[in-house]
């Protein structure tokens, strides 16, 4: 992960971070999608670990998780997906994102061993704030996995040091107060927030929530070390499914094409900045 950010810095551009739900719409298609992401322009890949009760997610990502669960996705299969991806790509950082309960039930130590062995680089666990660091964050750091924390508009200067203390890899700035897929953030406010976080940390700051178009991706990327896109990709995937919610021949390319277009936006930010 650190190597990837160092390389991007050398290239003078921001990271394009893509989120897809593991196992959506089925495990096999999901693997094909993840495999297509680096070629389409993704610098870092976040894979959602499906959960029945995703309390911070909007309707699109909720539905994606339920599609994956219905197709038989489990945490074990999500790790298998990473392992399969790693057979053909050793370089693209993989971050697993989700909620704590499936990991807690899998067993924290076993999960960390298996995630590390599968080639996972980092974790984002939405419902583990710093107050619960002993649960997973500290064991993950010890195991050599990055623990990427969310910072939000409600995380004030007083609280930021606590949020950043055990964070590694990058900081994920949630640009709005709200759930995934909600309205876009204003890029100048985002710039100010990123600057505020950077006063407290040397880590890269990536910004997510509300980025749907190459234009917003470009505007956000110009103000941050990376732009994260999730809901827009999940929506493109859903639009490609048949009436029963099954994959069609268009599904993989529907996601890859949008990633390519958004990647142009992110890369455009570099030219704009120069």
């Amino acid at each position, binding site marked *: 992960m650190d190597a990837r950010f160092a390389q991007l810095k050398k290239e003078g551009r921001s990271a394009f971070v893509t989120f897809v739900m593991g196992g959506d719409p089925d495990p096999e298609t999901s693997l094909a999608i993840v495999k297509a992401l680096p070629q389409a322009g993704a610098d870092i890949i976040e894979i959602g670990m*499906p*959960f*029945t*009760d*995703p*309390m*911070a997610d*909007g*309707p699109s990502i*909720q539905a994606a998780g339920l599609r994956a*669960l219905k197709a038989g996705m*489990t*945490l*074990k299969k999500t790790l298998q997906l990473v392992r399969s991806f790693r057979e053909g790509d050793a370089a693209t950082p993989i971050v697993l994102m989700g*909620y*704590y*309960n*499936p*990991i*807690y*039930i*899998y067993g924290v130590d076993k999960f960390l061993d298996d995630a590390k062995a599968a080639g996972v680089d980092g974790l984002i666990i*939405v*419902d*583990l*704030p710093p*107050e*619960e660091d002993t649960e997973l964050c500290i064991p993950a750091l010890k195991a050599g996995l990055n623990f990427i*924390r*969310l*910072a*939000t*508009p*409600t*995380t*004030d200067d007083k*609280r930021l040091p606590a*949020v950043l203390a055990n964070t590694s890899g990058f900081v994920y700035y*949630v640009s709005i*107060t*709200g*759930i995934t897929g*909600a309205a876009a953030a204003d890029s100048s406010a985002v710039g100010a927030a990123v600057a505020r976080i950077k006063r407290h940390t040397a880590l890269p700051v990536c910004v997510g929530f509300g980025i749907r178009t190459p234009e917003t991706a470009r505007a956000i990327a110009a103000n941050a070390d990376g732009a994260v896109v999730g809901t827009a990709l999940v929506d493109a995937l859903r639009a490609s499914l048949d009436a029963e919610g099954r994959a069609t021949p268009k599904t993989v390319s529907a996601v890859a094409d949008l990633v390519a277009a958004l990647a142009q936006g992110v890369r455009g930010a570099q030219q704009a900045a120069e």
Partner: protein
Amino acid sequence: MTTARPNSYRSGPDERGHFGIFGGRFVAETLMPLILDLEKAYADAKADPAFQAEMNSYRTHYVGRPSPLYYAERLTQHLGGAKIYFKRDELNHTGSHKVNNVLGQIMLARRMGKRRIIAETGAGQHGVATATLCARFGLDCVVYMGAVDVERQQPNVLRMEMLGAKVVPVQSGARTLKDAMNEALRDWVTNVHDTFYCIGTVAGPHPYPMMVRDFQSVIGDETRVQMQEAEGRLPDSLVACIGGGSNAMGLFHPFLDDPSVEIFGVEAAGHGLTQLHAASIAGGRPGVLHGNRTYLLMDEDGQIAEAHSISAGLDYPGIGPEHSWLFEAKRVTYLSATDDEALAAFQLLSRLEGIIPALEPAHAIAKVMELAPKKPKEHLMVVNLCGRGDKDVPQVGEILRKRAKES
């Protein structure tokens, strides 16, 4: 898992909101600063005699407390064992114990300057109580309710709307209480600046389980005094139904350090424990959901299961974290009653005592019907009649008519 026997069962939670391994603050970062603010505001209010005095005044003149402790003579004779008392919290304004907690939280919300109140509701009793106090204090009120519950608890939906609340039917998941809570949390994460989340039970992130317990403990505190007046001593046993467990915690907590008092919580066994049910302790294991670690119904992958109960108020796959701790500490015994047992108790109580209970406490009555005959006549048993059954009359009527036709 073993839990050392503590010096007191009433000292929890610790400063991080833990009851043993249970409880905690498992929430998104956006909410964390709000929860810390709430914890501080509640600590200030708790220590402020003016806050307590104002709450007591509303309890007396608006809610109608203390609720009576009533000797259920005919039920006692019918069962032929323990002397059964009802704590009549169904006589509160709004028809259930829920108002005890809502009053406290709404007063706290006002103190914090919050003008918009959100709540989740299952049976609608918490929603009605919240809508009522929002009307009383002129606050905006949005209640999230599973679409299935909106159907089966129509009278309460109408009441909430009449009180000026906006009822939002939740279409995700099984469209019951768990999903309503998810949706309320999503609202809160979005509207952090002006919104107070009024949680209806002893669950959620710290400080909610502690705060709701404190507001509900008026039930047990009154019971101690009233039983002393009636019988000159403590009760021998307590029985209450449990969904999240707020009425039970309110009755139990003041008695936890009285070893002579046996305590029974009754979960909803739905169609039976081997089928669809809502008994988190009988059929679940520890996990993390809705901000706390507690016993939950789930599959082997940690995906939360759909609960089922005839009672919308008990239809939840979790339980308050303090109950999980009391279970593992073996201080409280957790039983369960099926839909059919609750229906039978509902009818028996209506005919014998002239009290139509809500389906929720009908589960507690169902276990009283098993426990009381085995106890001697001098045994004093208190059951929390936490809600009245008006809201359930259409639903139960339909079920009974259908069954009569089939038989």
